[in-house]
């Protein structure tokens, strides 16, 4: 590579170095193989506030251009080894030098050459012999153009930067589609929403946009030039999930023609989540309200039971003395009375009447006392079995069949065996009374997961959930079932459907109380197959 300073006594200035600086004077490279031409050019431009570099062959010109990055090259076409066209081609072929403006210099005044030169990317053409003023004027004009272009470029870059930043930081996804519906621009939010990187989105044509409503909206906006909004569409993502988005499609108009559309996508997931949270909160509120109401009802029931209990204790005490007198009087009369049949029958009837009265009073006292349990580890099956023994005789007398299956895998748990026995006894007696002669009483116990259809209101109150492990006792009968109108009142103290003298109306409330004190629940319902079922549930472990 030769140095321009060695070219036949012409060494105007040391070659420049470093990158083009927009603030300094424009740098112009003069390339000609004839020193006299170079001198003319140099003198034409010297003194006009340019930094001037010279080269006297193509290779040298390329080397200097590469290093000094002049804004402008005045390039002679006719040079040995490498002509100006080739230099220009090589300048334009390299990214570093492609922006350098080229003005061709030639003796040739040939339109074909000029066109060839301009086609190679030259900006202008000066023919020899040069007029210094013309050269200076053309160079000045092009430098001015270059400066303005540079400024414009900078301004544009700034604008793009600002716009880019705005689009980049927007929460909304933004897509720019051209008039054919091809994606020309996407911002990061759009990438996130679609779950695809920009290059995939930018490869999409109008037909590729999913779902159809989005595609059709873009098509319509392109056709009608009118903005369009979609309340909510589900944007499909590559992982088969969808994102709920609100969409606005606006036309982009350039000089009255449709240049494309801008699609703005707003993610609704957050709003959905907030809505879901709100719904959940509302649900919880409703549930708390229901629970509160249930608790209130239970309190009212408890208060009712307590006052009934107090009353019962008082009444029982008052009734027991007369009962005791009558009982002992009867016992005495049985010992001393004559053995005539009618008297014996009278005495027997009176004994039975007394026993019934005693049962009522006994029930009253039990009700007033169901507050504490004497808990000991025990088998619920045993309590069930023992209570069945107490009614065996009566069942046989009434010709009621018993079908019993007690699971042997039920763990022992703390129970008050006496009270449980009483609780079961009451249920057995109810079932027995409901069954007509020849019917069947079914008793079943098991350890199982609570089926959801058996989760009744009492079970819910006791804190059971569907699927919980439970000790499940079912006492079923083949009687007429429960009148649906009575279902709500079954557990009320003194509610009875039995004939006068047959029941106290306390059995179920006593049973309910005892079972509840064991952490369990009692539910009564009609069986699909007819008859009633008393379902008793206990947690396998006593509550701490």
């Amino acid at each position: 590579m030769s140095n321009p300073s060695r070219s036949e006594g012409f060494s105007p200035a040391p070659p420049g170095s470093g990158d083009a600086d927009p603030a300094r004077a424009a740098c112009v490279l003069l390339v000609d193989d004839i020193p006299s031409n170079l001198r003319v050019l140099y003198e034409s431009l010297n003194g006009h506030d340019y930094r001037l570099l010279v080269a006297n062959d193509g290779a040298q010109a390329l080397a200097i251009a590469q290093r000094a990055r002049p804004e402008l090259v005045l390039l002679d076409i006719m040079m040995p080894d490498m002509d100006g066209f080739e230099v220009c081609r090589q300048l334009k072929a390299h990214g570093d030098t492609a922006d350098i403006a080229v003005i061709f210099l030639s003796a040739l005044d040939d339109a074909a050459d000029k066109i060839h030169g301009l086609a190679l990317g030259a900006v202008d053409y000066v023919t020899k012999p040069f007029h210094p003023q013309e050269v200076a004027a053309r160079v000045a004009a092009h430098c001015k153009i270059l400066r303005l272009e540079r400024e414009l470029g900078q301004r544009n870059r700034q604008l793009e930067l600002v716009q880019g930043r705005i689009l980049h930081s927007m929460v909304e996804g933004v897509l720019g589609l051209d008039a054919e519906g091809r994606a020309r621009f996407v911002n990061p939010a759009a990438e996130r929403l679609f779950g695809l990187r920009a290059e995939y989105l930018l490869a999409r044509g109008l037909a590729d946009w999913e779902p159809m409503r989005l595609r059709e909206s873009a098509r319509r906006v392109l056709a009608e030039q009118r903005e369009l909004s979609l309340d909510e569409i589900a944007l499909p993502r590559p992982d088969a999930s969808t994102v709920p988005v609100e969409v606005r499609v606006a036309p982009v108009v350039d000089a009255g023609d449709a240049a494309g559309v801008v699609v703005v996508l707003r993610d609704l997931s957050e709003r959905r989540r907030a809505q879901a949270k709100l719904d959940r909160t509302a649900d919880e509120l409703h549930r708390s309200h229901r629970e509160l109401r249930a608790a209130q009802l239970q309190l009212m029931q408890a208060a009712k039971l307590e006052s009934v209990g107090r009353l019962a204790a008082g009444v029982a005490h008052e009734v027991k003395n007369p009962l005791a007198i009558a009982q002992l009087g009867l016992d005495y009369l049985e010992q001393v009375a004559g053995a005539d049949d009618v008297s014996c029958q009278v005495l027997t009837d009176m004994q039975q009447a007394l026993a019934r009265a005693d049962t009522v009073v006994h029930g009253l006292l039990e009700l007033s006392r169901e507050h504490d349990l004497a808990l000991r580890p025990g088998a619920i099956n045993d309590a069930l079995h023992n209570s069945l023994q107490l009614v065996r005789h009566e069942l046989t007398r009434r010709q009621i069949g018993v079908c019993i299956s007690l699971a042997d895998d039920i763990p022992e748990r703390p129970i008050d065996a006496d009270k449980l026995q009483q609780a079961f006894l009451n249920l057995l007696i109810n079932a027995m009374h409901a069954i007509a002669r020849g019917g069947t009483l079914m008793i079943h116990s098991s350890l199982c997961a609570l089926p959801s259809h058996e989760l009744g209101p009492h079970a819910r109150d006791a804190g059971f959930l569907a699927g919980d492990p439970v000790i499940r006792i079912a006492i079923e009968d083949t009687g007429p079932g429960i009148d649906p109108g009575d279902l709500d009142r079954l557990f009320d103290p003194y509610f009875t459907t039995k004939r006068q003298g047959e029941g106290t109306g306390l059995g179920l409330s006593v049973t309910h109380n005892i079972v509840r004190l064991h952490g369990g629940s009692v539910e009564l319902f009609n069986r699909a197959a007819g008859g009633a079922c008393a379902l008793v549930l206990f947690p396998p472990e006593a509550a701490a």
Partner: protein
Amino acid sequence: MSKKKILLVDDEPALTRMLRLNLEQTGRFEVREENHGSQALRVVREFRPDLVFLDVMMPDIGGDEVAEQLKQDPALSGVRYAFLTAIVTKRETGAGAAEISGETFLAKPVKREELLAVVDELLGA
């Protein structure tokens, strides 16, 4: 063999009468009734019963308190006590009498056979 003496203390005269009739009917006991708890102390000292039936709840003084005072007297150390009550339920006393804190309780209404069984047990008959 002389008849065992039993004192019945209850504020209900009809009840003590029925108890007495049943006991006397066996021909094995000498029975007295007292319907005022406050008089019981005096009557016990006077009558010297082998067994005293006491109603727990009486208007003037509770049967348990009467028994407590009588037990303080060394001269009465051989006397046995049984309580009649309307509060204890049958289930708590079991089939007949139940021992609650060392005492014998009979729940009202008492049947003749229960009464006699308790008496026999306490008097070691």
